[in-house]
């Protein structure tokens, strides 16, 4: 298979069999005694212009995937083909120098704006940093661009000379957004960009992100630890557990027809917000197992209420459903068990009517 083959023209990033195993070193001689299998064989495509949600419990490897894509980490194995003007490039293999032009196209938005902004730098310098690094424009041009960006993210050019501590949490995250967008990337990895914010400003930042997406034609990979955040912003959702993908489906289908028991469990953990709605909550038992020694077979079988013998021995591949190629699921029982949806199609209509 040649690199360009079998990748649709609308795919901006194609990830195949991505693995990142962190070595665990111990003892005086720092011998490797094992591996944290943070990401363990993950394949997916990101389509240009979409928002792809990535959801999973803490420790499932979401951040690690994001950091592989922006190449803060070099994957242990796997291919990440990114579409550049010159065609598809496997960014997993590039070295520091070769990555330089690619870095202009992929940026990351971090979870905690308190730690993602250098307290000793002025807001303007923080936002201009990527421009500075890539030596784009003259100092005056950069300043104009930063002031434009400040207006764009709803802060106002007078914030240019402020320090991060002089801003509120929501304002700081807007600075983070402006920095990520200053070199006009095409793909932005948003790593839980609102988790650290007050509930009241979460919605504002999410709205800002989706406005900017529309305006600038951005593609987002949006990481979150629960499904309620991605519901409104994502076109598709990937559900991740212990370094592996469990299910990939359009957002609406995730909520209306989950096909993986883990997805069902995640849905169960969000309170229902439909008029008069009331649901029996099934809370997932136990803790997420260690990624050092993941369970055999299906990694979820230790906590799955439907698990059968086959689940303990054989690893289910992530494959499209026969009747629905948009949905892929890694479950032996996908066609046997019927799972409880978050809401039915009927409830969804009610909800949408309410919102309108």
């Amino acid at each position: 298979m040649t690199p360009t083959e079998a990748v649709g023209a609308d795919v901006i990033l194609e990830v195949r069999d991505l693995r990142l195993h962190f070595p665990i070193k111990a003892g005086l001689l720092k011998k490797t005694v094992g591996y944290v299998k943070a990401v363990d064989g993950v394949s997916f495509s990101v389509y240009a212009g979409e928002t792809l949600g990535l959801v999973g419990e803490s420790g499932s490897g979401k951040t690690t995937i994001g950091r592989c894509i922006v190449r803060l980490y070099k994957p242990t194995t796997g291919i990440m083909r990114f579409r550049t003007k010159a065609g598809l490039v496997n960014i997993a293999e590039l070295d520091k120098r070769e990555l330089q032009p690619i870095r202009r196209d992929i940026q990351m938005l971090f979870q905690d704006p308190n730690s993602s902004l250098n307290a000793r730098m002025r807001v303007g310098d923080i936002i201009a940093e990527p421009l500075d690094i890539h030596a784009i424009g003259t100092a005056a041009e950069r300043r104009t661009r930063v002031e434009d960006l400040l207006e764009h993210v709803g802060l106002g050019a007078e914030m240019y000379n402020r320090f991060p501590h002089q801003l509120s949490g929501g304002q700081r995250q807007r600075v983070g957004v402006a920095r990520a967008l200053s070199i006009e990337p095409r793909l932005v990895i948003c790593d839980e960009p609102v988790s650290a914010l007050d509930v009241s400003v979460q919605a504002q930042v999410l709205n800002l992100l989706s406005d900017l997406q529309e305006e600038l034609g951005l593609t987002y990979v949006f990481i979150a630890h629960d499904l309620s955040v991605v519901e409104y912003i994502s076109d598709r959702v990937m559900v991740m557990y212990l370094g592996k993908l469990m299910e990939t489906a359009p957002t609406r289908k995730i909520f209306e027809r989950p096909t993986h028991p883990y997805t069902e469990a995640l849905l169960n953990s969000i309170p229902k917000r439909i008029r008069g709605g009331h649901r029996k909550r099934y809370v997932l038992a136990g803790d997420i197992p260690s990624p050092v020694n993941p369970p055999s077979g299906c990694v979820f079988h230790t906590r799955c209420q439907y698990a059968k013998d086959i689940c303990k021995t054989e690893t289910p591949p992530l494959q499209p459903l026969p009747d629905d190629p948009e949905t892929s699921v890694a479950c032996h029982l996908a066609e046997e068990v019927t799972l409880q949806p978050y809401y039915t199609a009927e409830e969804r209509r009610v909800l949408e009517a309410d919102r309108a």
Partner: protein
Amino acid sequence: MNKLAGNGRRFRLFGLRKKHDERDVQDEYQLLTVRQLMIRKFLRNRMALLSFIALVIIYLVTLLAGFFAPYTARDADSKLTYSPPMAIRLQDPETGHFHLPFFYPLRGKRNMETFQLEYVEERAKRIPIQFFVRGEPYLALGVIAWDVHLFGSSDPAERLHIMGSDVRGRDLFSRIIYGGQVSLSVGIFGVLITIAVGSVIGTLSGYYGGVFDNVVQRVIETIRSFPQLPLWMALAAAIPPQWPPEWVYAGIVVVLAFINWTGLSREARGLVLSLKERDYVHAAEASGASTARIVRVHLIPNMASHIIVTATLAVPVTILGESALSFLGIGVRPPMVSWGLLLNDAIKIQNIVLYPWTLFPGLFILVAVIAYNFLGDGLRDMVDPFSR
């Protein structure tokens, strides 16, 4: 009890109160820049501020030693060996009349029972103390030839020793001021070397880790496994005795820095280890920043204040080290003077009893060391201006 309602009410109340109380503080806090916040924090620590002022004065005096000292360090008077401190008077003890500051000269008399030289004031001779008096010529700041001293005896034949004199009749106060030049500068130069070596090695080993870090850490552990003073003594004793005094001085500075850099290097390494995992460093890396840029823009500015604190607290250790070595006779050598070397006069117990003023240099060591420690504490508070 209705738990939910209770919680709800508390939550609302809490929210309201928070808004109210924090508003004024918050607003002012948000208006200030990082530097202003730091300065404000520092000014709030009275002891640190006082110590800072004291150190500035001490350094100024030693820097302009020729002017502030009534005599030079080598100016001796064999008639006044081990003279006690002379009292500066305003009032004639007999008549009760007030005068401008004056002193009575001391006359030595051999006590025929103990064979000690005993000094008595010659009350008949009132010698005024003169300000901006012309006296011994000296080189101000090492270049400008001058002979004006801040104060001194108006009669060149009658010497004034406000802190007494030593075995050769040299003025102790003047010698302390000149000694401060050595003692205090050893602290500064020693710490400059410590900062240069320690922070570079520490930053590199924290940032790159791996084999280099491993080797550096083992070396540091080895150096630190020796007790500090004996190691200093061993190293200082290795300085060849035929070296000129200036070389010995430089050698002592290097010996003192030899242990101190290890502490600073560890501090720098720890800081880098924690800073390099901050998201702003990741953000810079993801944008393609070079290592040099990350070190310059993100690491150094965030480390500088911690390094300055550690360095400030290392100065008194260095000063004490030099004093200890010189006191024991393996530090700087005459004709150089340092506080430790001056204190060497008090090494014999009978000297402390007979000439207690030979302990004055120790007082200066004490003041300098304490002031540096308070200053370091104040700077430590200042480092994190966001804590309130």
